[in-house]
């Protein structure tokens, strides 16, 4: 069965500091991996997906199949990045499983 692990429930950094939100997964097939974000009082929304290899709002994430990881990174955190971040995996039966989430707080 697929599993997504986000080891940090809470993460706090100062504005301008680098930030890395960790995500590890277990899946025997070829997964699709995503990062979703939930800002205060807003709907959950897609931040980025591994197949597009893009940078959104300064965030990037690289799929490391050897380490089964998909960590989210940003070199300089901003206060508006404070939110709940979820890593998600879509398997070959098209279910979408989420990790427990990491609440990021960026302090001024």
């Amino acid at each position, binding site marked *: 069965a697929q599993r997504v692990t*986000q080891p940090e*429930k809470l993460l706090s950094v100062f504005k301008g500091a680098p930030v890395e939100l960790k995500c590890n997964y277990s899946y025997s097939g070829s997964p*699709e991996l*995503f990062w*979703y974000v939930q800002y205060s009082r807003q*709907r*959950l*929304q*897609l931040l980025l*997906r591994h*197949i597009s290899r893009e940078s959104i709002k300064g965030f990037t994430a690289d799929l490391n199949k050897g380490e089964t990881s998909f960590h989210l990174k940003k070199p300089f955190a901003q206060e508006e990045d404070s939110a709940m971040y*979820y890593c*998600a995996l*879509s398997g070959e*039966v*098209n*279910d*979408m*499983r*989420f*990790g*427990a*989430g990491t609440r990021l707080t960026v302090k001024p």
Partner: protein
Amino acid sequence: NAGVTQTPKFRVLKTGQSMTLLCAQDMNHEYMYWYRQDPGMGLRLIHYSVGEGTTAKGEVPDGYNVSRLKKQNFLLGLESAAPSQTSVYFCASRRSGAGAGELFFGEGSRLTVL
């Protein structure tokens, strides 16, 4: 464009009562999902559907039933509510096909079972 709409947004039930949450999407998406969100546990998949008339169990299906009689609607039912089902419920949808990608979420439905 409404996207994904959930009703009701709030509901308080007594233990043993039944209720149905409705999810409607206007994007002609094939796939629809129901999740529950609990502190420290993230989003857990309850049931999902890959097309009209089909449903499948997710991670935490016990105590819930679903139906997808119309492509645009996905109903989540609680036959006999329990306090452990107090949660925020999210519906989501996405298109089918290779690299189907992004889930579109509803605003959530907060359910309290006393």
